[in-house]
C-alpha cells in the first residue's frame, strides 16, 4: 500500500486538474481576469466607462454575464454589445436627463454564482433593471431572484422557454427554441419549394426535440411531407444506419436540428451513403468548427440563426461599423442581442413613468415593433420576443445571408 497511495494521489491530481480547467476563468476579458485574481465577485469596470459614478443623477443598471469560464466568449460579446448601447445612449443625453451606468458581475459560467450576483445587484446596488445571461441555466437561476425582488430582468439570448415562465418581471429579446422549427419549415416550403423532407433528430437534447416537433407540425400543415424521422444520440459518430434508412425514402432535404459537432459528421456520411440533398438546421450549427468537421459536404446547407453580419439593412451595417470601431472585431449574434437587450431596456426606462420595478416592468412589456439589429422586437404576453430570424447558407469556410423569415 505504501506505493499505491502516491500513485493514486497523482492520478487524482491530474483528474482534478482536468475538471478544474472547465471552471477556471479564461484570461480573455478585463472583468474576467480581474475577478480571477481577486477570487471573489467585484464589480468589473466597464471598458472605456471608467468608475461607476454614484449619486442620484445616474441610473444604475445591473448586468450578470459569463466573463470567465466555459461560456466566456458568449459573456464577453454580450457585455461589449451592452456597453456600446449604453455609450450611445449617454452620448445622446441619457435617460430622463440622467446618465446611465451599468454594474457588471461575472458569474464564472455557473448558475449559483449568477444567483448570488443577482441578489447582490438587487439588495446592495439597488439597480433598476438587470441584463443577462446568455446560457439558459444561468438565466433561470437569476430569474428566480429578480422575480422575488421585483426587479425587471431582460435576457439577451436565453432561448429556453422556461426562463420567462419564471414570472412577470422576466423578459427576453430573442426568440424561443421552437420558433426556429417554424422558421425552417416556412423557408423549406416557401423559398426552397421542398415537398419531402426527412428528419434526423438528437434524442438526447430537448433543444433538438423541440425544434423537430414544431418543424414537423408546420411543414405538414404547409402541405409538405415528412418521409421519416430518425434519431441519434449526442456524441455518436456513426450515423450510417440512420442515413441508409433515410436514403430509402428519397427526401428533398434532411432537417438536422443538432449541434455543429454532430452535424459536420452527419453531412460527410450523408454524402457517403449517396444523399446529395441539402441539410437544414438551427442556431446550434453556428460555429466556425462546422466548416472543419463538415468539409465540403456541409456546403450548400441552410440553418436558421438570430442575426447575420451580411444583412444589408443599414441599421445592422451601422451597428457593425460602430462595434468594429470600438472593439476591433465583427460582432457575433450574442453581441447583437446584448446590444438589442440594452436598447430595449433604455427605451423602456425612457417610457416608464418612474423608475420603480412595476413601472419599468410595464414599460418593457409594452415593447412593440422595436427596431433591433437582430430583428424587429415585439414582446408577446409571455414576454418572449416575436421577431424574425435569418436563414444562412453554409459556404466555403463562411456563411452567407440568404433571407429573413418573419413569424
Amino acid at each position: 500500500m505504501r506505493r499505491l497511495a502516491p500513485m493514486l494521489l497523482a492520478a487524482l491530481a491530474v483528474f482534478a486538474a482536468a475538471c478544474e480547467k472547465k471552471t477556471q476563468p479564461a484570461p480573455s476579458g478585463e472583468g474576467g481576469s480581474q475577478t480571477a485574481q481577486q477570487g471573489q465577485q467585484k464589480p468589473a469596470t466597464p471598458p472605456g466607462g471608467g468608475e461607476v459614478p454614484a449619486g442620484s443623477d445616474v441610473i444604475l443598471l445591473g448586468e450578470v454575464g459569463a466573463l470567465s469560464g466555459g461560456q466566456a466568449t458568449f459573456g464577453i460579446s454580450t457585455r461589449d454589445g451592452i456597453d456600446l448601447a449604453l455609450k450611445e445612449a449617454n452620448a445622446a443625453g441619457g435617460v430622463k436627463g440622467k446618465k446611465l451606468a451599468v454594474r457588471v458581475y461575472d458569474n464564472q459560467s455557473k448558475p449559483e454564482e449568477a444567483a448570488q450576483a443577482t441578489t447582490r445587484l438587487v439588495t446592495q446596488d439597488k439597480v433598476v433593471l438587470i441584463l443577462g445571461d446568455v446560457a439558459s441555466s444561468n438565466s433561470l437561476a437569476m430569474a428566480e431572484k429578480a422575480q422575488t425582488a421585483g426587479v425587471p430582468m431582460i435576457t439577451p439570448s436565453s432561448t429556453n422557454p422556461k426562463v420567462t415562465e419564471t414570472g412577470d418581471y422576466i423578459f427576453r429579446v430573442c426568440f424561443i427554441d421552437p420558433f426556429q422549427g417554424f422558421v425552417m419549415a416556412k423557408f423549406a416550403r416557401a423559398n426552397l419549394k421542398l415537398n419531402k423532407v426527412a428528419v434526423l433528430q438528437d434524442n438526447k437534447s430537448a433543444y433538438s426535440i423541440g425544434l423537430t416537433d414544431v418543424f414537423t407540425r408546420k411543414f405538414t400543415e404547409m402541405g409538405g411531407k415528412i418521409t421519416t424521422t430518425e434519431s441519434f444520440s449526442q456524441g455518436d459518430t456513426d450515423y450510417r444506419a440512420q442515413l441508409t434508412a433515410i436514403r430509402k425514402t428519397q427526401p428533398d432535404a434532411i432537417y438536422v436540428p443538432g449541434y455543429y459537432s454532430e452535424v459536420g459528421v452527419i453531412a460527410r456520411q450523408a454524402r457517403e451513403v449517396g444523399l446529395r440533398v441539402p441539410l437544414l438546421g438551427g442556431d446550434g450549427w453556428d460555429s466556425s468548427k462546422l466548416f472543419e468537421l463538415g468539409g465540403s459536404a456541409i456546403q450548400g446547407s441552410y440553418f436558421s440563426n438570430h442575426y447575420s453580419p451580411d444583412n444589408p439593412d443599414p441599421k445592422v451595417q451601422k451597428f457593425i461599423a460602430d462595434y468594429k470601431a470600438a472593439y476591433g472585431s465583427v460582432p457575433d449574434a450574442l453581441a447583437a442581442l446584448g446590444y438589442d437587450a440594452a436598447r430595449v431596456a433604455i427605451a423602456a426606462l425612457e417610457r416608464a413613468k418612474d423608475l420603480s420595478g412595476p413601472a419599468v416592468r410595464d414599460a418593457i412589456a409594452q415593447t412593440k415593433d422595436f427596431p433591433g439589429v437582430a430583428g424587429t422586437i415585439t414582446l408577446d404576453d409571455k414576454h418572449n420576443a416575436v421577431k424574425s430570424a435569418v436563414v444562412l447558407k453554409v459556404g466555403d469556410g463562411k456563411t452567407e445571408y440568404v433571407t429573413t423569415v418573419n413569424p
Partner: protein
Amino acid sequence: MAQLLQHLINGLAAGTIYALVALGYTMVYGVLKLINFAHGDVMMVGVYMGYATAFALGREVRSSLVGVALIFAVAMLGCALLGFLIERFAYRPLREKPRLTALITAIGISFALSYGFQLDIGFLPGASPRAFPEVIEPREWIIIGDRDVVVWNWQVISFLIAVVLMVGLQYLVFRTRFGRAMRAVSWDHRVAALMGIPTDRVIALTFMLSSALAAGAGLLYAIKDTSVSPLMGLYVGLKAFVAAVIGGIGHVPGAVVGALVLGLVEEFVVGYAASTWRDAVAFGFLILVLLVKPGGLFGRVAAEKV
C-alpha cells in the same frame, strides 16, 4: 433486401474496429488477468498521434501509401511506448497487490488520459471534436444497383487488416516461443519466472503489442467516422470490452466474433428501431450471453481457487 445487405456491410465495418480494440483487452487479460480500462484511451492517444503526423506530412503525402504507412507507424510505435510506460509505472509496482488495486489504477490512467487531453495548453488538443484528415481517400469499390448497396475501400481494408491481425495473433500465441512464454506467464507468472522465463519482459511486450493494436484500430475508426475527440476512447473502449466479454475474454477468435456480433446487433437496432435502443440492446445482449454461457461464447469457465 438491398437495405439489409447495406446494414450488414456497415455493421461488419463497425464490428471489425471493435474487434481490433477488443483484441487488446483480451491479450492483456489473457496474460495478466487484468482488465486494462485505459486501453480505449491509449487508442485515443494513438489517434491524436496520427492526427499530428498527418498534418506534419501535409496534404499530398497524406493519401500516398508511404504517407499512410508513416502515420500508422508513428501512432503504433508511439502507443507501444505509451503502453510500456503505463505498464512499467502504473501496473508493475502493483503486480503483487490484490487485483482490484490494479483495476482502480487502470481507471485512474483512463481518466488522466481522457481529461488530460481536454486541456488546451501547448500541444494538447482541447475538448472540441476535430475532423480527422482523409488519409485514405474514400472510394466506392462495389456498387450494386442504383447505389442500393455500396462497399467502400476503407471498409474492405479495415476488414482485411482485422482478419490478418487476428490470424497473426493466433499464430503468435500458439506457434512461437514468445507465445509459449505468454501462455506460461498467464498460467502462473511466479512459477514461469522460476522456470527462467523473463516475465517482466513478456508482460511489457504484451502491453506494447496491445497498445500498438489499439492505435491501429483507432486510426481505422478515425478514418471511418472522421470526428475525433478526447473522450472517444471511453466510448469505443467500453464497447470493445463488452465485445471481448461476449466472445469470452482471453480468447482471441472469441474477441473478434464477439465484436462482429456486437457491431451487427448495433447496426440493425439503429437501422430498424431507434438509436436510443442501441446501448440498451448491446448491454442486454451481454447480460443474456453471460446468463446462458457465463464464460462468453467461446470461453471456458475455470473454477477459481480460493
